[in-house]
């Protein structure tokens, strides 16, 4: 399969790069100085694109690669792939569901605890030597707090299961109600926000869910409420969230994703009621290897004309 050209959209995983190098002719898109020249030169040999949460395959790239057969994403999110275009051209799309569900759910709970119990703030407090001079104030209890989840898919359900172990009542908003779960359904995100203490974004990013957390939702969540985002930055109207945090109209936020990564609004850097992470939801040694193996497995299956492991299209 060594003559098959695979275009990797951005750096994502050294092991994956290494394995792709062994099996295919790997092109590292981020090292190409002149992208349009490169694409016209290699347009006949590139048959696969490997993308992730930061860069995938938009309409322009797809059009420039007439021999493209498959887009394998090193992520579960598909928002960087023009799915309609892929469908139109008969291009297969795969992602990495299930293998990262637990890590993302673990991080959501980790963010909740870090925000409510001020763990990062406490750590800074001790490191700066301030403990010797005074006592630290009370933090907020997590056990028993009402958790509202936007999107009750694999990740949403995993978050619910974990929060239940902390005796948290669970409610959710989803495209459709899921009566088989015992959780309380709210038909709108505003109602969900008004009735929970901690609002977690766990849905996929689509046209419909862009800015699903807007000013109205932030107001409904309120001055005691906490927002946790382990979805995608564009789920939130970021300038609105920033001003709500700075003005203390919302209690706090734990954010793993931002609208324009890796840029993070600097107004957040000085706040003690936020925890800011550099998109590490699936960022463990174990899970990234599993994700890489899934990408490799899907590509191999495709080129050997076997059934794809985790097809989306």
């Amino acid at each position, binding site marked *: 399969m060594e003559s098959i050209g695979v275009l990797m959209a951005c750096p994502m995983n050294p092991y994956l790069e290494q394995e792709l190098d062994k099996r295919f002719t790997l092109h590292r898109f981020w090292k190409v100085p002149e992208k349009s020249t490169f694409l016209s030169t290699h347009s006949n040999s590139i048959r696969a694109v490997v993308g992730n949460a930061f860069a995938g395959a938009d309409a322009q790239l797809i059009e420039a690669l007439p021999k493209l057969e498959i887009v394998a994403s090193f992520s579960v999110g598909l928002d960087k792939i023009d799915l309609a275009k892929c469908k139109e051209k008969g291009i297969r799309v795969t992602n990495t569901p299930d293998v990262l569900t637990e890590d993302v759910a*673990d991080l959501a709970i*980790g963010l909740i*605890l*870090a925000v409510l119990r001020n763990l*990062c703030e*406490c*750590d800074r407090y001790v490191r700066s030597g301030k403990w010797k001079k005074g006592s630290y104030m009370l933090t907020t209890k997590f056990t028993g707090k009402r958790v509202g989840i936007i999107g009750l898919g694999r990740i949403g359900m995993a978050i619910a299961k974990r929060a*239940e172990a*902390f005796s948290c009542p669970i409610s959710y908003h989803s495209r459709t109600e899921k009566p088989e779960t015992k959780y309380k359904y709210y038909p709108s995100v505003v109602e969900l926000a008004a009735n929970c203490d901690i609002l977690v974004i766990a849905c996929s990013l689509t046209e419909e869910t862009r800015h699903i957390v807007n000013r109205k939702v932030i107001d409904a969540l309120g001055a005691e409420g906490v927002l946790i985002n382990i979805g995608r930055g564009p789920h939130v109207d970021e300038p609105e969230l920033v001003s709500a945090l700075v003005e203390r109209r919302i209690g706090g936020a734990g954010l793993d994703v931002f609208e324009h990564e890796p840029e993070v609004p600097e107004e957040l850097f000085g706040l003690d009621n936020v925890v800011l992470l550099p998109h590490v939801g699936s960022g463990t040694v*174990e899970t990234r290897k599993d994700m890489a193996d899934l990408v490799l497995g899907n590509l191999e299956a495709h080129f050997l004309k076997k059934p794809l492991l985790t097809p989306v299209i």
Partner: protein
Amino acid sequence: MESQPPEERSQQRSKGLPQVLVMKPPPLLTLFEDKFISSKFQLLKAWESTLPLDQFLTTYAGSVRAVLCSGATPITPRIIRLLPSLQLVVTDSAGVNHIDLNECRRRGIAVTNAAGVFSDDAADAAVGLLIDVLRKISVADRFVRHGLWPAKGDYPLGFKLGGKRVGIVGLGSIGSAVAKRLEAFGCTVLYNSRKPKPWVPYPFYSNVHELAADSDVLIVCCGLTAETRHMINRRVMVALGKQGIIINVARGAIIDEKEMVECLAHGEIGGAGLDVFENEPNVPKQLLELDNVVLSPHRAVFTPEGFMAACDLVVANLEAFFQDKPLLSPLIHE
């Protein structure tokens, strides 16, 4: 009236109510003073006097039957000797390592602690610290706040929590609450306790060394006693291993801190999440420079809900005592 010492003034104010000695105000009292206004007792506030403590006790606390203490005001044999009428020690904490239990037993002095009310918060903090260490939450937050993400790119990977073998040292109220939570994350729970508990579904290990050898994580949830002092020693930590994580929400002295610092600095264990230290508020300088530790200023139980529940329990114990009713949370000497 201004020339009267405060203790005489307060005695005149609420004549007749039995006194509860308080040597220094515990955080509970400072934060929720109103809750301690009772029709059954009044507080004898030693810290408001200019007299040295011993002299104050000898002068004013001769007939005091109850004392409210906390970690900062240990009940030593010396203090007990200065309180000939003492019948009850009430502490605001779950821990009782600051109370000489042998001396209390000898004198027939009952002890109550704040058992149970802090378990959820302590367990939440333990889980929070564990996820923080494994997933590098505090250190990655610092990375972002310093503007390093655009410059340095992707942050180094952390480690998965699911599937980890977690050894709980001390399966009491707090340890059980930790176990319940971690099961939901797909962890395998193991434990060591003074005695096995056949009704729990987790495998029992008769000593901490064996527990460590079979675990990826150790979470210290037991009380500090003569037996548990420095129980987590170098041998235990080496058995835990280079990827091993220690979480301590119990008492600093259960771990040989000096050895732990060496093990962390030399990569003999993988990381630690610490809410308590041997000599608070002093934290070993070497720890402040490590990225694989998360540090917390003994606040695992500091939530308003936990404190208010503790207040209620402390006051309820005192009121029960002065009405000759059964104590709510007496320490049972095993």
